């Protein structure tokens, strides 16, 4: 037990579980405050999400919906954790996601491109936005958080303006890709058959999982990953070691931006959602990505599970009793979880201290036992 707790991976897992439990507990307390009746039922519904449906078939189908939305979230969280490993807080992922949505939707609806070019275009759009943040950071010393936020709003208003050209006449939403240009929809490759005939389950699912593994390999096993991480931990040391630190910063944000852009294409090109051209706030996907990245212990593999969990409770929010509560309770829970992730370092240190203390005590005991033994001789 103690040996297992020494393992950093296990520690990260335990810390995440503590964050989740506390987050849900606080959510429950908030519900209790609003209305004690039905709080328990609502919080279990948030946790159960698609299990609230009684038929296994519907459950499976709803699971497919959650799965389809997990993939863009996973991409956003990969974007954030990748940048974070290089010492950059890519809060601009939300804007890069918006740029990706705008690019793939416009290419699909206005130009009639097929799915792969649309997807690549979305990646490029996100990467360009990431590059702007990177260049500003590397050459002008602009704090990436502030420039990222500014770009979030700029890209939101730009997307609203550009996508207004391909919107339906009567509604603020963009046209259906399925009607206008079915070739831009991501292929299902038979995966929909596996998951309750849910047409939103596409090749995005395996693709996203593969990318998570690739990112993990890049970060841990390649020279590039090593250089990027070195730049993150000490820019000057990296320069003296002969690494091009400015180039590395820009490259990191280009990759991070590309990931977020790809995430957008994985959602909008399934036809699950349409863009609302009168949106007045940046879509939450990029921000939820922060929660997923930190909850996953900043590991790409951990992010797969944490993304699913965050999306799971976000979707679960719609099953609360709307007579008293609002679905934003899940936003509240995930933001509490992000806040608690700030304490992860503290939790880990406490765990290590506890282990060290009990170890000390054991050694002390052994010593006293030995000396006692000697004295007896």
């Amino acid at each position, binding site marked *: 037990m103690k040996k297992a707790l020494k393992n950093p991976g296990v520690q990260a897992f335990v810390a995440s579980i503590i964050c989740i439990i506390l987050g849900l507990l606080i959510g429950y307390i908030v519900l209790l405050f609003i209305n004690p009746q039905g709080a328990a039922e609502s919080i279990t519904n948030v946790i159960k999400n698609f299990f609230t449906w009684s038929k296994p078939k519907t459950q499976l189908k709803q699971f497919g919906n959650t799965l389809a939305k997990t993939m863009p979230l996973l991409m956003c969280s990969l974007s954030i954790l990748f940048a974070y490993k290089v010492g950059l807080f890519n809060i601009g992922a939300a804007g890069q996601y918006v740029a990706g949505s705008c690019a793939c939707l416009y290419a699909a609806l206005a130009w009639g491109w097929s799915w792969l070019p649309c997807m690549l275009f979305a990646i490029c759009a996100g990467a360009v936005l990431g590059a702007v943040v990177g260049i500003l950071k590397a050459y002008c010393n602009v704090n990436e958080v502030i420039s990222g936020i500014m770009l979030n709003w*700029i890209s939101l*208003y730009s997307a609203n303006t550009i996508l207004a050209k391909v919107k339906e006449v009567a509604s603020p939403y963009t046209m259906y890709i399925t009607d206008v240009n079915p070739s831009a929809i991501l292929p299902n490759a038979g995966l929909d058959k596996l998951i309750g005939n849910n047409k939103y389950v596409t090749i995005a699912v395996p693709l996203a999982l593969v990318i998570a593994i690739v990112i993990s390999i890049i970060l841990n096993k390649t020279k590039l990953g090593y250089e990027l991480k070195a730049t993150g931990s000490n820019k000057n040391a990296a320069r003296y070691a002969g690494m091009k630190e400015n180039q590395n910063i820009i490259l990191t944000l280009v990759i991070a931006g590309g990931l977020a852009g790809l995430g957008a294409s994985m959602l909008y090109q399934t036809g699950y959602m349409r863009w609302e051209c009168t949106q007045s706030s940046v879509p939450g996907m990029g921000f939820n990505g922060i929660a997923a990245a930190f909850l996953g212990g900043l590991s790409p593999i951990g992010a797969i599970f944490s993304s699913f969990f965050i999306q799971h409770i976000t979707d679960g929010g719609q099953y609360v009793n709307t007579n008293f509560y609002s679905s934003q309770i899940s936003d509240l829970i995930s*933001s509490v979880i992000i806040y608690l992730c700030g304490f992860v370092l503290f939790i880990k240190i406490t765990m290590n201290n506890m282990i060290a203390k009990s170890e000390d005590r054991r050694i002390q005991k052994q010593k006293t036992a030995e000396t006692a033994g000697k004295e007896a001789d």
Partner: protein
Amino acid sequence: MLLLIQYTLIFSSVLILVALGGCISEHSGVINLGLEGIMVIGALGGALMMRFCQTESAFVMVLLVILAAAFFGLVYSALLGVACINFKADQTLVGTALNLLGTAAATVFVKALNTSMNPDDHSSEIEYVRARKMFITNINGFEFNWFMLIAVIAVIVVAVMLYRTKFGLRLMACGEHPQAADSVGINVYKMRWAGVLLSGILGGLGGICYILAGVSIWKFENGVAGFGFLALAVMIFGQWKPGRIALAALLFGLFRALSNTYVGFPSLAALNLPGNVYNMMPYIVSLIVLALTSKNSRAPKAEGIPYDKGSR
């Protein structure tokens, strides 16, 4: 034109209040990225007071609303203080969490409140037409808002406090070189707490000022549209100095005001640009300004680094 000046002044007041908050916090050594969330919570406190306080006296109302907003901001910023000062958490992460939490919590709370009063009402809006009038004095068509005066006073008070008082100088020492400050007997943790809490008060005031600026009904789902971050850009452009922050805020306020009033200018309306272009303006300007000014920034040296007594 008068309208443009009016909007410029009121939006500048918001930016001044919030940027001063950020400035104090950073001088004490804590980067307060949670200002956006603090604004939302401050606005919530003020809006609730406006909604439920029945007083007829304008003075009492203004005072109570200001106190409520400041108090809400203060309490909320304590979350940042606990995590970043006592538990040495990542300041960027916690700030971001506070931003998300601010909007989410305010939305959940206001919706629950509306629903409890009227079961069919699921909106996240609070309306305060009557109270807003008490904040405004009409001078020949120019709507003078008391917050404009408060912002001016805040600039003076903060400037005097930072550069002329023992407290302010000690506070700044904690942001520049906390170990040195500690060695002469200043309690760094206390000073940083003071910085964070003061920024919470100013952030809360900025929040209530923002929702009073142009409208008399506020939808809490929308948050404050990146204004907390604009204020941080103002602070950087103002090089962490209260006087310069005020000037920078005027510039940013002007661009923000344009998006409300461009229709009134024949020359601008004739350009026929989409309204979104004006909405983007403040953000674009701040990006350009940041790119030009960040290179030689005079940021407090120890900002963003949790203070640990044991480290060298």
